[in-house]
């Protein structure tokens, strides 16, 4: 098991997440896909830090920050989605592509 395994796994998760972001219509589902992508990044970060002596703590610390930001992002995004649902009655991204309503 070497670094490349983790990188491939990370790439796979990232691509799946990207597909989700591009192809989904529901804002909630897009959010979930973004979470997948963030986790792919985290895998990469930690894998690199684990395989590189000099970066031992850096990767993990940055991963902690990524998780923090992810949590903040989910909170905000969900608040926006709820607001959107209240004003538009829908969370379909394709329906809310106009800039004003």
């Amino acid at each position, binding site marked *: *098991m*070497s*670094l*490349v*395994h*983790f*990188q*491939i*796994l990370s*790439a*796979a*998760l*990232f*691509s*799946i*997440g*990207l*597909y989700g972001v*591009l*192809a*989904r*219509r*529901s804002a*909630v*589902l897009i*959010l*979930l896909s973004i*979470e*997948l992508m963030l*986790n792919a990044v*985290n*895998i990469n970060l930690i894998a690199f*830090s*684990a*395989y*590189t*002596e000099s970066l*031992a*703590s850096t990767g*993990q*610390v940055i*991963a*902690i*920050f990524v*998780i*923090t930001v*992810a*949590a*903040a992002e*989910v*909170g*905000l995004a*969900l*608040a*926006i989605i*709820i*607001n959107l649902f*209240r*004003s538009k009655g829908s969370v379909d*991204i394709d329906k809310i592509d106009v800039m004003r309503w």
Partner: protein
Amino acid sequence: MGSTQESGTEGGVLTESLVVFLIISVVCVAGGLGVVFSRNVIHATFLLLVSLMGVAGIFLLLLAEFLALVQVLIYGGAITIVVLFVIMLTKSDEFESLVDNSQKPLAFLISIGLFVVMTVAAIAADNGNTVRASLKFSDLGHSLFTDWAIPFEVASLVLLVALIGAIVISKQGEEE
């Protein structure tokens, strides 16, 4: 999800841990695919949880125990539940028949392409790096509160701002 994590901590011999790695990876990827292909939003959320718990297992394999636990706590305990709350509040069941949009084929191509590119790049750059550095829990804490003290404070500020922002945004909608 539980047993895989348990065996993951054992990771000493390479071949055995490779098997464990493959099992967890399959769980991760299958969960991820489930998230993007499932037609039911709630199912998608639970599959995301499965996938993220798999990621926690990967963290264990990488000897990042603290992060694995953080992953379980934050994603399992907080994010999934908040997402479930929102799904149930916004009655997203209406999307069962139209979860995907017209960009589907294009998105599929892009994703596959990206995956191929990244994999090729990773394999090409693979220098057989097998030095594995384990990190002690206390060292992580130490570096977090010394070298990274300012980013840490900034991150907590970000969280606070996001918290307040979320409350304000969702309150605004209520008044209308």
